[in-house]
């Protein structure tokens, strides 16, 4: 039996390793030439255009639609309404598992939130469909909208996040708070936020009898396919979904959305292929968002700064018709050693769309409050905030007592602080100004994100010509999965990257799990690695069992795969090309399969997280209250990095999301109508180029033998955590004013001591 020491031996990964190389992404050429086809770029013959008409009230009923006006508009072919739509095999409001979100598919005339689809107009041109949708001029029976925390009844949800308990307690918080020498209590507010990827949701759907072909952006192809199968009562094999390119996801393309299904329904209704693309204003309602939060933190510490109690309470919101409760308080579970720890959640139901995972769901929201509160406690103890964090460094995970699988946070603090120049920071706030008279402040935040894995499958093939193929339904929304996974695949097959074809982004390929939770590279990567090992194992068996092979009898010593050859581990002068092994066996290819998932033993034994430290400098113009982040330095440790260039970009992107969280983005809801008032990119502020400070990311190397065989943690979301808090803390340091409502606006800061 050939021993293939591939799965765990780092040696295999080191030989001419593709992993760890900062390679230029493979899809770059397609994207800079405009050749990358996004969903809305498809135009099959006979295509019709569909445009959604969306509710302008938040709660009530649609009483009438002017169908005649819409139908009379030249080019309009059909109007899909609750009364006129193809039948569905399942109730859109049925919920057989927590990840099946209720969808608005014109099932009745009820309106549950502003922006809810209430009809779909299908026409020969986009212009006609758009105009037709406007001509419907809906009339409503309106009920008062519940938009804020004060408008609704507070309750305790049965679970938060992906099934965590709403309350978790360690130790006796009340007693420790009472006994603490110093105590702080602070309430922080974060706004509703919308993902706003630059690519709006879009779908091109074509039916062929009971077979369906779909182009749509999706972070989770297999789940989307299963949802469609259930809704339309057709076998999943009948459905092909192609999502080779997504124009950003950030979580809003993780679950199949109502508008995407409406596109499929529209195609069914008219019997022609249909393209449905959301308008930007329609991205504020039916495709998920981050709910607002009100978080109260109570901390107690000894005089020397050692924490005795950390109590984190979050009030969040879900929709009136479905459950998604962002677990913000859970951000306090893992970072700071406190003998008494409590995370608690309460919620209200508002007349909004159902919230959905939005980049670092829970972690980002909780982090800005936690890092602010930690800083407030440090100030109460008259300690430098970095020293305070080090004083309370957790050697084991506070909520569970488990050891960390790896934790290079001290190095992150040290290297980030050094690069930033932290030691020059005056303890007192309001003590720094620059040459132009602007107030200057320096703040720090700790970043952390769990090292998650989902379940994924892959197939690896070695072909007669000695090249390889990896098949994996992985989704690349810009994070660079295709490049990183191709690198892993090439290593797994012992080939150079240019020798490996990588097929992904389509539902007919093995299910790689969802691209979310920063888990994709680890999950799909492990599946690909295992598939490669399996293929190499089968190839090796052909050789080692064949007298004519240079590898004959290598069984116990094993073989190593490298550069398209198998080598005897005990005598590398004996080797053979893949092509020759296959040719002699009379095979045109050999394949292997593999799967990736978290190791349950490791999960039970270790706390597995990526960590980081972010240092921020802000400058404030006291006349305007204008805040600019001038410098951000983030040092992160996230296990093995397959492609440092891609990783660095994720850190940059994440840090800017942190800037946006602290200073820019928020959805403003009109309390009378329940509508989002700034449902466009003019008024919903995402950072522009000029908002971006000098950014530096330090990639701290870290080896983790437990998290998975490749040592990969995730990097897509961690950089928001820590960044937003560091900025909030820097604002305090610049002004001496602790601002607890985010985003921090001009008016909150204007008129500060100048």
């Amino acid at each position, binding site marked *: 039996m050939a021993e293939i020491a591939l799965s765990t031996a780092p040696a295999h990964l080191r030989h001419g390793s593709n992993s760890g190389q900062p390679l230029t992404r493979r899809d770059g050429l397609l994207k800079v030439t405009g050749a990358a086809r996004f969903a809305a770029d498809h135009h099959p013959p006979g295509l019709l255009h569909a445009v959604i008409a969306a509710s302008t009230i938040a709660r009530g009923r649609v009483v009438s639609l002017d169908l005649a006006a819409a139908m009379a508009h030249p080019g309009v072919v059909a109007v899909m309404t609750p009364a006129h739509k193809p039948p569905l095999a399942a109730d859109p409001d049925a919920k057989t598992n927590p990840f099946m979100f209720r969808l608005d598919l014109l099932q009745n005339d009820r309106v549950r939130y502003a922006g809810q689809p209430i009809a779909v107009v299908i026409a020969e041109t986009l212009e006609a469909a758009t105009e037709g949708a406007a001509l419907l001029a809906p009339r409503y029976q309106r009920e008062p909208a519940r938009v804020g925390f004060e408008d609704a009844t507070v309750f305790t949800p049965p679970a938060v996040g992906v099934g965590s308990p709403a309350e978790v307690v360690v130790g006796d918080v009340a007693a420790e708070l009472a006994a603490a020498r110093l105590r702080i209590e602070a309430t922080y507010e974060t706004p509703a936020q919308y993902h706003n990827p630059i690519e709006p949701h879009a779908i091109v759907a074509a039916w062929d009898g009971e077979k369906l072909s779909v182009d749509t952006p999706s972070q989770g192809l297999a789940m989307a396919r299963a949802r469609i199968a259930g809704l339309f009562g057709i076998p999943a094999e009948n459905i092909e979904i192609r999502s080779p390119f997504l124009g950003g996801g950030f979580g809003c393309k993780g679950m199949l959305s109502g508008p995407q299904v409406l596109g499929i329904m529209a195609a069914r209704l008219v019997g022609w292929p249909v393209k449905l693309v959301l308008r930007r204003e329609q991205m504020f309602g039916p495709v998920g968002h981050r709910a607002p939060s009100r978080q109260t933190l109570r901390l107690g510490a000894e005089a020397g700064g050692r924490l005795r109690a950390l109590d984190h309470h979050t009030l969040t919101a879900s929709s009136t018709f479905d459950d998604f409760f962002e677990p913000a308080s859970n951000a306090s579970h893992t970072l700071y050693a406190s003998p008494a720890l409590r995370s608690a959640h309460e919620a209200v139901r508002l007349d909004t769309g159902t919230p959905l995972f939005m980049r670092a769901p829970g972690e980002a929201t909780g982090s800005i409050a936690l890092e602010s509160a930690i800083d407030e406690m440090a100030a109460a103890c008259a300690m430098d905030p970095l020293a305070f964090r080090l004083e309370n460094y957790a050697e084991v995970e506070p909520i569970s007592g488990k050891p960390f699988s790896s934790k290079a946070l001290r190095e992150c603090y040290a290297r980030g602080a050094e690069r930033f120049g932290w030691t020059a920071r005056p303890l007192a706030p309001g003590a720094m100004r620059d040459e132009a008279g602007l107030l200057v402040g320096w703040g720090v935040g700790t970043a952390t994100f769990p090292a998650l894995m989902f379940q994924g499958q892959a197939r690896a093939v070695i072909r007669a010509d000695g090249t390889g193929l990896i098949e994996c339904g992985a989704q690349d929304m810009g994070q660079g999965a295709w490049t990183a996974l191709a690198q892993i695949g090439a290593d797994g097959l012992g080939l150079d990257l240019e020798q490996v074809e990588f097929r992904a982004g389509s539902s007919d390929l093995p299910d790689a799990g969802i691209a979310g939770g920063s888990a994709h590279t680890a999950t799909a990567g492990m599946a690909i690695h295992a598939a490669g090992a399996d293929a190499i194992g089968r190839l090796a068996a052909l050789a080692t069992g064949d007298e004519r092979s240079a590898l004959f009898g290598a069984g116990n010593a094993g073989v190593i795969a490298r550069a398209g050859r198998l080598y005897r581990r005990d005598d590398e002068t004996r080797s053979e090309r893949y092509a020759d092994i296959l040719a002699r066996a009379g095979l045109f290819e050999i394949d292997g399969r593999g799967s990736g998932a978290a190791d349950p033993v490791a999960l039970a034994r270790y706390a597995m997280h990526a960590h980081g430290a972010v240092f921020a400098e802000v400058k404030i113009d006291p006349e305007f209250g204008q805040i600019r982040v001038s410098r951000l330095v983030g040092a992160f440790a996230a296990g093995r990095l397959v492609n440092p260039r891609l990783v660095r970009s994720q850190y940059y992107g994440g840090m800017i999301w942190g800037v946006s969280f602290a200073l820019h983005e928020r959805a403003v809801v009109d309390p009378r109508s329940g509508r989002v008032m700034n449902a466009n*990119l003019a008024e919903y502020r995402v950072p522009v180029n000029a908002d971006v400070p000098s950014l530096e990311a330090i990639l701290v190397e870290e080896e983790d033998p437990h998290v998975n065989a490749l040592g990969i943690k995730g990097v897509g979301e961690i950089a928001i955590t820590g960044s937003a808090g560091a900025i909030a803390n820097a604002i305090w340091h610049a002004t001496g004013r602790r601002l607890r409502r985010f985003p921090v606006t001009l*008016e909150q800061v204007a008129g500060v001591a100048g």
Partner: protein
Amino acid sequence: MYAFAYQKPATVAEAVKLLSADPEAKALAGGMTYIPVLKQRLARPSAVVDLSGLGLAGIGVSGGVVTIGAMTTHAAVAASAEVRRAIPALAALAGGIGDNEVRHRGTIGGSLANDDPTADYPAAVLALGATLRTDRRTIAADGYFQGMFTTALEPGEIITAVAFPVPEKAGYAKFPNPASRYAMVGVFVARGPQGVRVAVTGAGQGGVFRHTAMEKALEKSWSADALAGVATPAEGLNADLHGSAEYRAHLVGVMARRALAAAG
């Protein structure tokens, strides 16, 4: 969008005829404001009359007057060596309107005909005491602006050029809306043939206005100190999700000082 007819006349007379004959027809200059308006279905013209074929773009300086053709783009004004030499504050103002792509298409005539209360040009026109030339008459700045989106233009009347007397000193400073870059508050101060004039855009509920208190103060003493004593009442100022009326009043004072500093 509602459907509409499209016409592209070759002469000003033809354009005026088309617009006058049909009260539902609308002039289209750069389209940077009007096309978004059409997309939002906020307007329903029977026809759109494209002014880009009328040869109204161009810049000339003579006899102490800078004349800018109505269809001159913001980018052209910003880049013009002549404008930079004669009225640098005007070139700088043009260079700060919107973004590059907006500046490539947006025109001074379009901006002034529309009279958006947060547009930049109205402040320059009012503070510099410019004269608007149309197909049928000339209109002095003081009589031109009549409120938000309201001007002295008659139906069918087209601006053909704007004539700016070259000032002794001029400066503009604006505080941009963080998202759209329109002026939350923009202040243009000038000292020229018509004396000291200070015009404020972005802040007032009635559109651009002259800040007479500041003008009096600066007439006495062209200095930041003179401005320091002048308050701007919050009453009559805009309030929205980007800032309250009080905040805008505060900004008027700050931007006026910065405009003065820019004027030298």
